[in-house]
């Protein structure tokens, strides 16, 4: 019982501790870096599963760091959403670590590998921290750790373009961070507390204050940048394109954590009735998201670089999540949160496949993918399945989230949002089916001798592709935790 009681902090501490051990291990025993990362992440995955089960059985858990009671001490609140995010994050990062074993030998020099794993673990720990913290300033700290490790991961290869992309990301991210800090400062001045639950109680009398409203605006803009919500997505395509393929997989999680922070801000710090009815913040977000979905899809259609195409597709799909939140009903929130795992799994699979293709062929240009369907059948099979899921073809998981978000928009009396979602799946079809067509039916320009990717890369790919189907048929699986999550968030 004692261990279980400390589980919230253990989940975060496992990857963080491993991150601090990593440079040491990397210095002495380079070979063991990957194993350490895999073991740490596997442990944290198991811990997250246990945590999720505990939360499902006993309801949300509160953990007071070092025993200081809130609102003075830092509080960790593992609610349904937090537990869910921990499972998603640790699962995907575990697969990233597995995948990286072979993959980064080609992408990174030997000295950089320990750094890569250190950053990976740091990122994981901070993402989980950001998802389950109950303290606003702690949220900011976690965001800083995860942003800084993302900047470094983007430019880890040390090549000119990667450095430039990382720098761009850093600049824009720093602006976002200052927005966040300013917003948090405003809220702190107004309420005198940093604990979210405390703030939730103290804020309603202050709703007419300009300071509080400014804080909301600042935080929303800051988080929108972190979430890459169009038109604040400009850092994302470069960052995704120039980083090794495992980084975008992590980054899809990073932008999801941004979306979770938006959920926290809207429903855990402010009252749902305030952001839905008094100032229609959710409605505004949903319209921005609707525009984002269409524009990002159009951008994706015009790309020839596979990673860039997938990057724009990510911008589009994170907007699905925001749209779901923006609908502002229980069903919409459920659908939006459902898309967090569905998109993480599917886009993870697509980026892994892209990584495997680049690993084998060295090209990122879609037009040169001719004939890959025959040479890398497993990879391309998984790619096809995941692409169909992105398009939203049943019975894949992408269809389920699409259905839920569209249904939510429809029942909330917002048919235009439902139509945008459906239209977007057509646009998605255009750019994904082009890739599939080329790989299966295109004729290679020159015959190159390549075979299937190594098993350590194939296992994560196959696992995620299988998840696309499992989460499609077994959509109840994530929903068992997401339904109470939405109810708790909306206070119904």
């Amino acid at each position: 019982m004692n261990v279980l009681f400390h589980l919230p902090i253990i989940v975060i501490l496992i990857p963080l501790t491993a991150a601090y051990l990593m440079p040491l291990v990397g210095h002495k025993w380079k070979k063991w870096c990957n194993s350490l990362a895999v073991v740490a992440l596997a442990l944290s995955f198991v811990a997250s599963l246990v945590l999720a089960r505990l939360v499902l059985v006993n309801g949300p858990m509160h953990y007071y760091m070092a025993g200081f009671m809130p609102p003075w001490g830092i509080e960790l609140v593992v609610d349904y959403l937090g537990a869910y995010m921990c499972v998603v994050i640790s699962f995907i990062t575990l697969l990233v670590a597995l995948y990286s074993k072979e993959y980064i030998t080609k992408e990174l020099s030997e000295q950089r590998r320990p750094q890569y794993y250190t950053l990976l673990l740091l990122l994981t720990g901070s993402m989980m921290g950001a998802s389950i913290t109950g303290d606003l300033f702690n949220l900011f700290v976690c965001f800083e750790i995860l942003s800084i490790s993302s900047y470094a991961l983007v430019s880890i290869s040390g090549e000119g373009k990667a450095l430039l992309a990382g720098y761009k990301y850093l600049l824009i991210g720093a602006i976002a961070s200052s927005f966040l800090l300013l917003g948090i400062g405003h809220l702190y001045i107004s309420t005198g507390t940093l604990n979210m639950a405390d703030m939730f109680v103290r804020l309603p009398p202050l709703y007419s204050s300009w300071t509080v409203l400014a804080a909301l605006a600042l935080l929303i803009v800051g988080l929108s940048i972190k979430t890459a919500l169009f038109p604040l997505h400009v850092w994302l395509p470069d960052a995704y394109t120039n980083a090794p393929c495992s980084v975008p997989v992590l980054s899809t999680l990073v932008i999801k954590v941004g979306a979770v922070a938006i959920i926290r801000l809207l429903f855990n710090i402010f009252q749902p009735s305030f952001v839905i009815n008094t100032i229609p913040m959710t409605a505004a977000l949903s319209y921005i998201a609707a525009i984002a979905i269409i524009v990002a899809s159009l951008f994706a259609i015009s790309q020839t670089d596979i990673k860039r195409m997938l990057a724009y597709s990510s911008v589009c799909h994170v907007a699905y999540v925001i749209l779901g939140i923006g609908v502002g009903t229980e069903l919409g929130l459920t659908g939006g949160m459902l898309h967090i795992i569905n998109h993480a799994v599917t886009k993870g699979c697509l980026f892994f496949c892209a990584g495997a293709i680049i690993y084998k062929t060295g090209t990122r240009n879609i037009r040169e993918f001719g004939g890959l369907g025959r040479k890398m059948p497993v990879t391309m099979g998984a790619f096809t399945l995941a692409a169909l899921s992105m398009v939203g073809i049943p019975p894949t998981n992408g269809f389920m989230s699409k259905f839920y978000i569209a249904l939510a928009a429809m029942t909330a009396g917002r048919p235009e949002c439902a139509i945008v979602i459906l239209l977007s799946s057509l646009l998605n079809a255009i750019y994904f089916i082009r890739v599939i067509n080329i790989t299966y039916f295109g004729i290679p320009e020159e015959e190159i001798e390549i075979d299937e990717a190594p098993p350590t890369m194939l296992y994560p790919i196959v696992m995620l592709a299988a998840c696309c189907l499992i989460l499609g048929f077994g959509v109840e699986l994530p929903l068992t935790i997401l339904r109470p999550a939405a109810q708790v968030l909306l206070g119904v």
Partner: protein
Amino acid sequence: MEPVYSIRPALAIAISLTCAGLIGLTGKRHRNFREFWTLSAAVSKYIIVISMFPLVYHGGEYIFSTFEIIPGVGFDLRVDAFSMFFSFLSSFLWIVTSVYSIGYMRSLHEHSQTRYYLSFAVCVASTIGIAFADNLFTLFIFYEMLTIATYPLIIHEETPEAMAAGRKYLIYLLGASLFILLGMVITYSLTGTLTFSNSGILAGHGTPETLKTLFVLFVIGFGTKAAIMPLHGWLPSAMVAPTPVSALLHAVAVVKAGVFGLIRVIYFIYGTDLMRELGLGLPLAIAASITIIVASLFALAQDNLKLRLAYSTVSQLSYIILGVALLTPSAATGGIIHIANQAFMKITLFFCAGAIFVQTGKKNISEMHGIGKTMPLTMICFAICAMGMAGVPPMAGFITKWYLCLGALEAGQPIFVAVLLTSALLNIAYFFPPIYNAFFMEPEKGAKKDNDPTWWLLLPIVLCALASIFLGLIPRAPFTPLRLASVVVEQIMGGLL
């Protein structure tokens, strides 16, 4: 009658999916073995479907329910009379088409045959899934599976023309499925269920305006697969695919899935009474009539035999829709039996066109001089079914036309009788040239005599042609499509036959 819980519906679907897997594993190294999988799966699937026939024929149902996907809607299968009608037809035609495919693909030494057989098996599995779906959600899952699985078949030739046809196909059908999805979402938000019911589920929900808009969404969605004009554009383009694929498209599965879905929506989501109340039948019947006439005129102008047949399908499919839209028992019976009648006749016609192509390499009607003399058996079957299409007794097409005319009069809309008769004339007009060319023109010099194809190709042709005579001669024998269609109509309209 109490429904029977059984695994058989799931088994019927699983068997073709397993078959697809086995085909993929076997590959082209052991091609005889691969074809053995196709044939054995086709036969065993047919046996499974047939085993459910007697109970369903007497008004019973088989149910196989699994888990809930969304609250109130599960991934469930149910075999009622209408499911049985469609699945019986397509599983039978799968056997025939498999035999034909083997003959056709081998004669022409086609490439990527493994992919071909694999996709075909998935298509048939999805079709049976569509037939057995207990609710719109399950139907939609299989419907989309069918759309995707048909794509590799349409672009089989991999020529630029085929790729363009494939692109057109996907844009039309994926676009259309969005309408279905939207309709499904609206239906679910109105009623909280999607399960088909004999009396419809929408009655008493929503305003008439909402329901009318919803109906338009469904008609566009399913109508694209059913090739209602002007949503038919993909079907003629898709005839670049090998002939057995055309058979799949036009007879076994694809367009029929669209019609099937539309009928499910009309009778099992809306229900006859609500359809009458909202007055939705007449506009649909008019749209169908326009399609019947215009598509026949288009068919007249085609020289490519398969293209002419494709437009003929567009026209004939609207017979079914017209019958269903008239909302009277006789018309509905006529519409539903035409699913089977058109399938048998059109598959024969396509098989003949394919056989001509295999034996002589000719695609255009104007080149087919005297082939009736060199390929007598093939062309006799062609002539029989062409006449059947035009509604000449004693072929199956006549039965359809009889019931449809009866239904139009029952509905008090004699104008549709005129439509049907005009269409019969046009049918004769566009089927006459190929028959005339075949039998009354002299073959070119040097043409081979006794050029009938191998029995792999000929047997399916003869079998289907005989079936279309049989269905016209003794339509009311027990266990025929007409009897089954009567059971369906009895269930949805309370029975007047």
